[in-house]
């Protein structure tokens, strides 16, 4: 089932998938699991994940599940395979990174609002620019595939901090991408947004849509850049989540019009003009 904004509804409740592989990719890992009961997700949607066993222990976190964008969803002869790109940054991602093929992965999803295009834009004609960095490659990989299959003219720009943060490149194996790296190990030395600026300002100025996912500073640069040029853009944001399905009101993100949205149900993909900044608010994020 699909909602008005293209979101695919989740099977009711949480289900157990079996991990089919879990391989290193750059400094990240690609965790794959077979989802027999689940529908194909829309690009930009996410799942709440938890290891079936070894989730916490020794009176340590994690207790809650963790949100992950789906990076690829491929129909195989064993059923739908979901791929997630993850980096071990804390106890939850650590437990997921340690999962082995055959072990259980508890999931709820697909969840949230996927990427879309403003009604007034004919994407098939105007085309799209995908701008990703770091773990933000995940939702852009599945988006690229979906738009590519539709024949939407695509340009993809990917940025990396350094080699240790350059995982997930194999998700873009197929295609031509523009690269930038802060340490210059690949492509343009500098920010991926340098490439975007050049593209938007050059003869390739987009009448289409910019889709972006990556670190907050990158998203904020993309958002400002597009706003200044009147280019439509959609950003896939992150914020801590407890439930992922609208139950806890914990995932508040400030709206440009005042108040907050629940990112799990009103996002994670938001229009650039819906928010005032892509930088996370609050003292907590200083740490």
């Amino acid at each position, binding site marked *: 089932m699909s909602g008005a904004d293209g979101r695919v509804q989740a099977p009711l409740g949480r289900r157990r998938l079996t991990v089919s592989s879990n391989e290193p990719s750059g400094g990240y890992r690609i965790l794959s699991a077979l989802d027999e009961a689940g529908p194909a997700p829309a690009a930009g949607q996410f799942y709440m994940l938890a290891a079936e066993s070894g989730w916490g222990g020794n009176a*340590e976190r994690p207790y*809650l599940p963790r949100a992950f964008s789906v990076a690829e969803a491929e129909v195989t002869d064993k059923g739908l395979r979901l791929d997630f790109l993850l980096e071990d940054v804390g106890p939850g991602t650590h437990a997921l990174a340690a999962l082995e093929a055959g072990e259980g992965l508890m999931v709820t999803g697909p969840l949230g609002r996927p990427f879309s295009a403003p009604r007034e834009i004919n994407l098939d004609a105007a085309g799209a620019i995908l701008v990703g960095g770091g773990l933000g490659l995940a939702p852009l990989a599945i988006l690229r595939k979906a738009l590519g299959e539709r024949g939407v003219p695509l340009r993809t720009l990917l940025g990396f901090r350094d080699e240790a943060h350059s995982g997930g490149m194999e998700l873009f194996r197929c295609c031509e991408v523009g690269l930038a790296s802060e340490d210059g190990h690949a492509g343009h030395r500098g920010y991926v947004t340098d490439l975007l600026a050049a593209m938007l300002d050059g003869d390739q100025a987009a009448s289409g849509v910019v889709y972006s996912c990556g670190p907050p500073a990158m998203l904020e640069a993309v958002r400002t850049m597009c706003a200044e040029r009147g280019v439509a853009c959609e950003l896939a944001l992150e914020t801590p989540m407890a439930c992922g399905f609208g*139950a806890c009101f914990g995932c*508040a993100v400030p709206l440009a019009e005042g108040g907050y949205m629940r990112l799990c149900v009103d996002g994670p993909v938001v229009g650039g003009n819906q928010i005032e900044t892509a930088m996370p608010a*609050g003292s*907590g994020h200083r740490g």
Partner: protein
Amino acid sequence: MSASPVEFCGIELEHPIINGSGTFDANAARRVFGDELIAAANFPFSAFVSKTITPAPRPGNPPPRLWEEAAGMINSIGLPNKGIEGFLEHDLPGLGELPVPLIVSVMGTSAEEFTTLIEGVAERPEVDGLELNISCPNVHSGLIVGEQPTETLALLNAVRPLTGKPLIVKLTPNVADPVAIARAAEAAGADAVSLINTVKARAIAPGSSEPWLGAGSGGLSGPAVRVIAVKQVADVAEAVAIPVVGMGGVERGSDARDLLAAGATLVAVGTASFRDPLAGARIRAELAELAMS
């Protein structure tokens, strides 16, 4: 102590497992899971308690609003809600479509505000009962009434005449003697009490000396508070004759059974639903199995 149908304040419920206010948004969940959610055979609770509303809309607290612990979490959500008008217009119609009785949770900072809320809500046919939130630790006003037996008595005396529908008073655990508050609620005609709300807690931001939560502090819920809840529910159930809705850290059927053993008539599931949207249904099934063994 079974998972069978149960009567609660004159309402017939299919089983004793309901949700804790503010821990399940049935309308949002229906967007996520579709109409499957509200099929009678699927809906995880035997009654639905809606998130606390206030007279005026509230944006809620600044983020971060969540902190995770090994066996629970702190929230400082701050009661975001559309206010009573927004609730009646936008939320109530959807909640009226649920396959179970509806209890609406309300919070005011004065008897007048509670009156506005109760008058606005109680007459609606979709509504089967009201829960008076006098315990939310995130909003200063919430504590004033719920910490003082005299305040609780006065509030209930003022609002009890407003409706014949069941009034449930939700108690805070952050007091020396929850029994005194429960007795006051009972004396002034409350139909039931529910407890526990979250326990006041604070987290420090990693690598900093500052509080993590945008609001500074919040309330602890989940398995960490389970045995605190069993204690308070047992004390209150022994002291009052009205039914008790027990909650706090219920994750398994045996946790629900413990609260029923402690004297609760119903058990509410809160934080566990975040980990597993159908936790309520699982807990009910586990409870049924325990009752048979």
